[in-house]
C-alpha cells in the first residue's frame, strides 16, 4: 500500500506527534549541557531543572517585594487584556463583517478603507495611541484591537459573501425581511467562520499583547519577560514562553471545541486542524 493511503492508528499518531517535541527537548538538553560544562553558571541555556525551579518560584512563592504570586498575577493581567481586546475585535468583526459582506453600499463605502487600514503595522503608530489612549490599559487593549480587528472583519465579510446566493433568494421568496435574513440565514452561516477568524486573530493578538506590555507596564507575561531579559534570566523567560504557548494552545483548542459543539453542521465535511 502506498504511504499516501495508509493511516496511522491513534497511538502511532500520538507518538509521531511527540517525536518533534522530544527532538527539540533533547537538542536543548545537549546544547545546555555543553555550555554548562564550560561555565556552570551559564545564563543563556539553563538546565531543565533550573527552569523548573524558576517556574515553581514564580508560581508558588510570594514575591519578596510585593508579596504577589507573580506567575498568576501576570497570567491574569495578560489574559484580561487579551480577552478584552479580542472581545472588542470579535464584536467589530461581526457587525462590520456582516454589514460589508451583506450590503453592497456599505461594502463600497468601507471595504477599501478596512483593507488599507489592515495593512498598517500597528506598532508604528504606537506613539499616537499613547497620546490618544494614555499609557494605561486602554492603549494596550487598543493595540490588540487595531492589530486584529481589520483582518477579522475581512475574514467575516468574505464568509458572508461566500453564502450561496440561492439561499438568500430562497429566504426572500419566503418573505423574509432584511433583519430575518441576517439572523436566520447569515448569522448561522457566519458564526463558525467568526470563530475561525478569532482563532487566527489570536496569533497576532499574543504578539501585540507582549509588545504592548514590553513598552509600559507594571505586570503581565510580556512585561515579566522583557524585565528579566535585562539580566538574561533565561531560566524565567523560557518557562514563561512555554506557559504562553500552552495558554494559547488551550484557548485555541477550546474555541475549536466550541465551534464543533455549537455549529456541528459546519464540521460535517471531515477533519479540520
Amino acid at each position, binding site marked *: 500500500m502506498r504511504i499516501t493511503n495508509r493511516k496511522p492508528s491513534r497511538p502511532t499518531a500520538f507518538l509521531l506527534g511527540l517525536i518533534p517535541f522530544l527532538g*527539540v527537548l533533547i537538542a536543548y538538553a545537549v546544547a545546555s549541557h555543553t*555550555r554548562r560544562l564550560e561555565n556552570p553558571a551559564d*545564563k543563556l541555556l539553563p538546565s531543565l531543572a533550573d527552569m523548573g525551579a524558576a517556574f515553581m518560584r514564580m508560581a508558588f512563592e510570594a514575591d519578596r517585594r510585593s508579596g504577589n504570586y507573580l506567575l498568576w498575577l501576570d497570567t491574569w493581567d495578560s489574559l484580561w487584556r487579551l480577552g478584552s481586546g479580542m472581545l472588542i475585535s470579535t464584536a467589530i468583526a461581526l457587525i462590520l463583517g456582516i454589514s460589508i459582506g451583506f450590503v453592497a453600499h456599505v461594502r463600497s463605502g468601507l471595504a477599501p478603507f478596512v483593507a488599507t487600514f489592515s495593512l498598517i503595522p500597528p506598532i508604528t503608530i504606537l506613539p499616537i495611541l*499613547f*497620546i490618544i489612549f494614555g*499609557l494605561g490599559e486602554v492603549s494596550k487593549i487598543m493595540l490588540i484591537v487595531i492589530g486584529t480587528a481589520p483582518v477579522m472583519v475581512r475574514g467575516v465579510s468574505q464568509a458572508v459573501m461566500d453564502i450561496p446566493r440561492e439561499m438568500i433568494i430562497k429566504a426572500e421568496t419566503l418573505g423574509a425581511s432584511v433583519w430575518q435574513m441576517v439572523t436566520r440565514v447569515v448569522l448561522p452561516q457566519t458564526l463558525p467562520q467568526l470563530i475561525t477568524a478569532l482563532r487566527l486573530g489570536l496569533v497576532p493578538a499574543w504578539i501585540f499583547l507582549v509588545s504592548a506590555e514590553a513598552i509600559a507596564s507594571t505586570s503581565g507575561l510580556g512585561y515579566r519577560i522583557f524585565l528579566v531579559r535585562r*539580566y538574561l534570566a533565561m531560566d524565567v523567560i523560557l518557562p514563561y514562553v512555554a506557559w504562553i504557548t500552552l495558554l494559547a494552545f488551550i484557548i485555541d483548542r477550546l474555541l475549536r471545541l466550541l465551534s464543533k459543539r455549537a455549529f456541528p453542521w459546519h464540521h460535517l465535511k471531515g477533519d479540520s486542524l
Partner: protein
Amino acid sequence: MLRTFTKAICLAAALTFTVSPPAATAAEKTEFKVCWSIYVGWMPWGYLQDSGIMKKWADKYGIDVEIVQINDYVESINQYTAGAYDGCSMTNMDALSIPAGGGVDTTALIVGDYSNGNDGIILKDKGKLQEIKGQNVNLVELSVSHYLLARALDSVGMSERDVIVVNTSDADMIAAYSTSDVTSVVTWNPLLSEIEAQKNATKVFDSAGIPGEIIDVMMVNTETLAANPSFGKALTGAWYEVAALMASDSPEGKAARTAMAEASGTDLAGYDAQLATTEMFYKPADAVAFNQSKELPQTMKFVAEFLFDKGILGEGAPSPEFVGVAFPDGSVYGDPNNVKLRFDSTYMQMAADGAL
C-alpha cells in the same frame, strides 16, 4: 515518519551548533571582536573603528580587532555574556548583574567615564524631589535609572515603597512623557535633555548628586585578556589616542568630536553639551586614580546591595556578597572564592606610563 525524524535531527543539529560556545575561548588567538552601543561616553568606539586608529594599533601588536555597534544596549551585553564578543562597553552595575552574575569572569579594562548629570529624574509641574511621593514613575526597570531613583529616594529618607515604578521602554520615553498620565520619569541622555526641554519639566535630581557611582567601562573577558595581553594593549592604546584627540581644541579634535556627534544623531554643540555632564577620563592617569580610589569599593557595595535587593544578582544568591568584586589593590568585596568582576589598572597604567 522519515521526514519528521530528519526534521528533528536537523533541528537538533542546528540548535546544538548555533548555541555552542566558541571553542576554547581562553586560548591564544589573533582575532577579537568587541561591541558597543550608542552613549555619549562610548562614541569614541565607533570613531576608533571608522578612523582606522583601531586598525593601526591592532597591526602594531599583530592582531585583528573588530569593533561592532549594536543597536540595543541590553542585547549587546547579552551577546557578550553568551560569548559572541570578547569585550563590550557597559556600566559597572550591568557588568555585575549580567556577565559577572552569569558566571562570566569579567575585567574592567578601560574605565572611560562616570555619569555626572547624564542620568536624571524629571517631574512634571513639580519642583522638588520630595513631591515624587505617591506618583507613578516611568523608567527602564532594573537599569541605572532604577538605581538612581533608589539612591535619590534614599537621600530624602524615602524608599521605593513611596512610589509606583512603571517599566517603560527607553525608545518610547519621550512619547510617554507627552501623555497626561505620566508625571515623572527617570532616564538618561540624550532623552533626558530632550524631555527637560519641555516647558512643564523640572529636573529634580541627577547623577551629579551621586558622582562616580554610574561608571561606563569597557569590560572584557578575563580569560581572553589573560591569554592575550596584546588584545588589552591594542585596545587601551587606541582608546587613549582618541581620548587625547577628543580633549584637544585642535581642528583634528573638533573633527573627531563632530564625527562622533553625527554618529549619535546630534551636532557638535549638542554632543559637547552631553560631554559636559559626563566626567570623561581623557588621561589614563585620571582613570587609574579613579580606579584605585577608596570610593570605588563603596560604590560597588551600594550596587551589589541594590541588585541583591531587586533579586537580580543571580539565582540562589544568598547575600549581596555572593559575587566577588576585586579591586586594583587586591582587596575583594564579597566572596573571594567567586570573584567574577575585576577592576584592574594594569593596562591603563601602561598607557599612563607611555609603555604601549
